[in-house]
């Protein structure tokens, strides 16, 4: 299998603060990879390392086989990069910025850019600095799609966008992903949008990497059980059966990678009396919160 991105044994510290240790993942060509985590768990750090804007404390990232710390112009031409907050050259207007970027990319597709700009209903001489956050996001999206890159790196594309613009963004991303041989690396803290988009995920927490697996496998294996305890509320701790737990009065929400039968046996082995034991269906966002906790 051909990998577009390979991160090997990535460890990073800011001063003495560990961001993560020994992060490993590979992104196969043509896949949509989500790096998920709450704010401050190292998503942007990883994006910065991938783009060569940050030297990791140890480990390395390879993009198209090149070390991300020294990407050649030819490799950078194959990567579309969306900065967090949809940052672009705001002193330009939408005509000037299209003219500027088109000079760098031989496969430049101006139709897709102007198609998105038409939706904005702004004049071609409107400066980007005078646009709303949603409009700026469309300019940034139009520019990276017009590049026709082989790899798209999107740093929290959903930041500051209302649901309409998020949906529009996703619709175009999905179309892009359908094209042959395209790979997407996306980070986001709004998980619900990604459920139908990504096919592999790494979930980061403040303590490091919580999970790395295909989304379908994660949603199939990770379960949410709810039950009521009778008598004293048990002091359940995280272990190999209990991945996460929330107790409100005598209502227990238990998250686990084990089957219902295994969890029930586990509860019985601890002498816990319970009732109304049932599995609750989860969206990807529910599963993410179940795994990482609400705080």
């Amino acid at each position, binding site marked *: 299998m051909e990998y577009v991105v390979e991160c090997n044994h990535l460890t990073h510290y*800011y001063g003495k603060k560990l961001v993560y240790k020994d992060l490993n993942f590979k992104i196969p060509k043509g896949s949509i990879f989500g790096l998920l985590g709450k704010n401050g768990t190292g998503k942007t750090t990883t994006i*910065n*390392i991938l*783009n*060569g*804007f*940050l*030297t990791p404390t140890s480990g390395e990232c390879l993009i198209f086989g090149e070390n991300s710390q020294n990407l050649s*112009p*030819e490799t*950078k*031409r194959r*990567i579309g*990069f969306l*900065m967090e*907050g949809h*940052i*672009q*050259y*705001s*002193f*330009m207007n939408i005509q*000037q910025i299209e*003219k*500027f970027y088109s*000079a*760098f*990319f031989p496969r430049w597709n101006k139709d897709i850019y102007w198609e998105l700009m038409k939706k904005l209903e702004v004049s071609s001489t409107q400066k980007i600095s005078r646009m709303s956050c949603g409009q700026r996001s469309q300019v940034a999206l139009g520019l990276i799609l017009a590049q026709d890159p082989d790899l798209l790196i999107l740093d929290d594309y959903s930041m500051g966008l209302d649901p309409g613009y998020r949906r529009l963004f996703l619709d175009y991303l999905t179309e892009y992903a359908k094209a042959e041989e395209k790979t997407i690396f996306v980070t986001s803290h709004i998980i619900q949008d990604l459920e139908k988009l990504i096919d592999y995920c790494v979930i980061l927490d403040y303590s490091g990497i919580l999970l790395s697996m295909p989304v379908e496998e994660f949603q199939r294996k990770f379960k949410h059980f709810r039950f009521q305890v009778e008598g004293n509320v048990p002091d359940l701790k995280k272990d190999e059966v209990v991945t996460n737990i929330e107790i409100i009065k005598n209502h227990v929400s238990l998250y686990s990678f084990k089957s219902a039968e295994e969890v029930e046996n586990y509860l019985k082995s601890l002498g816990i009396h319970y009732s109304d034991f049932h599995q609750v269906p989860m969206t990807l966002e529910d599963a993410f919160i179940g795994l990482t906790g609400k705080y």
Partner: protein
Amino acid sequence: MFSPIYYKEWLKLRWAFLIVLGFALLMDLNIYLNLSHDIIFIEPKSYLYNVIFRGIKFYSGIQYLPLLSGIVLAIVQFYPEMHSDRLKLTFHLPVNENRVLLQMVSLGAFLQFIISLVLVLVLMLITGKFFPGEVVSSVVLTVLPWVLAGFVGYFATAMILIEPIWKVRIILMLIFYGFIGFFYFDFFYNTYARSWPYFLLLTLAHSVFILYSGYRFRRGVR
């Protein structure tokens, strides 16, 4: 091929360039009006005596203009790059990062050169209208270090703005503030008549200093 980087930089710099250029011409006009006035009201021979033997610099009003121009151009050009880390967009372009930085400073330095050239050429014309050729060459030699200080100011401000850490920025500001002082030892005219080639070399050396700040930015120093 004409690099699109120049197009981007021009979009940022064009208004600042035109305003500073206009201001430089106004300063020249001011010198012309003052000179015309003084030569009418002071006896010409006596005025020439003051210029030659007492070292009166009728053009001292433009002493800090090139420096101000260099600092303004660098701020207008590089502040937008540092705001929200936009420099990452520039470094992500499919061009070698050092080449991008050098192209950026080359356009800024070129515009600074145009401003300085116009300022000095008009000053030479004004001087030539009232004084002999020897005075004109003396004026050029006297303003030359001020012009060079403008370039140092431009390169230094660009380097300081790209530098990611404030503590280092402040240290660099102090160093350059002290260094630029060397261009203003003007006890008399023609002070730099023999040393200006060395100052020119030092000024040119400053043009690549930005690469160091750019390297630190790319390596993620924060």
